[in-house]
């Protein structure tokens, strides 16, 4: 006598929930298509405009009168990104220490620091830049201020998360020995996260240099400002020069920060 072979479970059809989700997702995309006036036909019809643009833009104007100021402005952009990152370190560090369970002095400080970080993160750096331009006038200083504020929010949060990951044993050992919160942060928590902190710092520097470009477009100095100017004067050949310079800057920063991060990780 043979035992009956167990039947394989029948494959189920899509559930009602799956159907609803599919309909909703498709519907939302149709609405988004209309809201953005998405239209490939318009793009095709506009080819002549694009051709005109490229005819004026190419070849780029690589003469010294354009390239010189372009490189100088690119260096200003780099400096905005650098200062915006470096000067946010103390604020990000203090807020991160308050916003990580390993180091926070209490629930109240933890919640307050988390809320402040969320706020700084939620306000885009361009908005901060517009605010500071009205306060300190057009120019790179407004860009630096904007980056300090926004980057404090992002980097503080990333650093706090890095500290949430670590083993709390070394901190507990020092707490038993009578170390204060600040002492155990300095001697147990922070030493364990130095490589992560440096990696995140370099990553933010990389992002901030690119942001400071956009900040220039709203008047906060650097090469973004030049790009904005050349568009207004219809000097597209100069604009392409600026963009090429930006490309070199961004690739250089990206590659060197990636290289250093790899060295730290090993």
């Amino acid at each position, binding site marked *: 006598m043979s035992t009956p072979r167990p039947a394989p479970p029948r494959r189920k059809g899509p559930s009602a929930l799956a159907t609803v989700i599919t309909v909703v997702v498709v519907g939302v995309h149709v609405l988004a298509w209309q809201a953005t006036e998405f239209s490939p036909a318009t793009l095709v019809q506009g080819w002549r405009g694009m051709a005109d643009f490229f005819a004026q833009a190419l070849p780029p104007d690589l003469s010294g009168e354009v390239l010189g100021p372009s490189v100088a402005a690119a260096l200003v952009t780099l400096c905005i990104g650098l200062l915006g990152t470096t000067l946010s370190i103390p604020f990000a560090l203090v807020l991160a220490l308050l916003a990580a369970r390993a180091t926070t002095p209490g629930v109240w400080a933890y919640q307050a620091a988390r809320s402040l970080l969320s706020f700084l993160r939620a306000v885009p750096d361009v908005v901060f830049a517009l605010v500071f331009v009205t306060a300190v006038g057009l120019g790179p200083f407004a860009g630096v201020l904007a980056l300090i504020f926004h980057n404090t929010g992002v980097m503080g949060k990333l650093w706090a998360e890095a500290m949430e990951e670590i083993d709390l044993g070394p901190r507990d*050992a020092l707490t*038993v020995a009578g170390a204060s919160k*600040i002492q155990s942060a300095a001697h147990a928590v922070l030493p364990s996260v130095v490589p992560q902190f440096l990696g995140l710092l370099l990553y933010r520097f990389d992002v901030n240099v690119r942001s400071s470009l956009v900040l220039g477009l709203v008047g906060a100095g650097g090469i973004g400002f030049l790009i904005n100017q050349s568009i207004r004067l219809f000097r597209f050949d100069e604009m392409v020069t600026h963009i090429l310079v930006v490309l070199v800057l961004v690739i250089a920063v990206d590659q060197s920060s990636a290289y250093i991060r790899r060295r730290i990780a090993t």
Partner: protein
Amino acid sequence: MLEVAGLRKSYAGRVVLDDFDLVVRPGELVALLGANGCGKSTALRCVAGLETPDGGRVVMDGRPAMVFQQIHLVKRRSALDNVCAGALGRLPLRHSLAPVLFPRDLREEAMTCLDRVGLASRAGEPAGRLSGGQQQRVAIARALCQRARVVLADEPVSALDPSAADQVVALLADLAHAQHLAVGAVLHQPALARRYADRVVGMVSGRAVVDAPPADIADLDVLYATGTP
């Protein structure tokens, strides 16, 4: 001197420590034995202040020092800096915000402590580069640098090979006897307890059920037979 009386602790209604008593006198190594989950770590953590007991009394000279199975040194820092960190509780912030600020006499004291555990020659090396047994001895040196009179050790040798384990327990016994420290150590090796401990406290389900010199206990295995919940 460490005196624990009537210690109670439960987690979410589950009783982990049930009227737990323990006395460790200066100059004595007491081995705490018991099956997994009987509450040994919880008892030590309550004594050390890492957990708040629901009730009971803990009296001791000053702050205890704690030594862990996972060692818990800062691996990137030198052995010497790790030992100095034991003194944080008595240092003002201006002398303790970074290792470079540690006063000179503290460094000298820490070197003496490292020498006591036989590792003075490795003082400058990052703690993470030492072997497990050496790291545990650095952790014991940190406890000495804390000038603790009571040392609690939670399975200090469970991650070590037999010879390193023997060396570390021998060191704990020697410190208890020579320096008059009160040392309470959780051990999972009855043989080591027999060889080095002055007294054995056996724990079953959150309660001390045996308390005697090892020579007076015929069979330590009985603790494990009845202990499993």
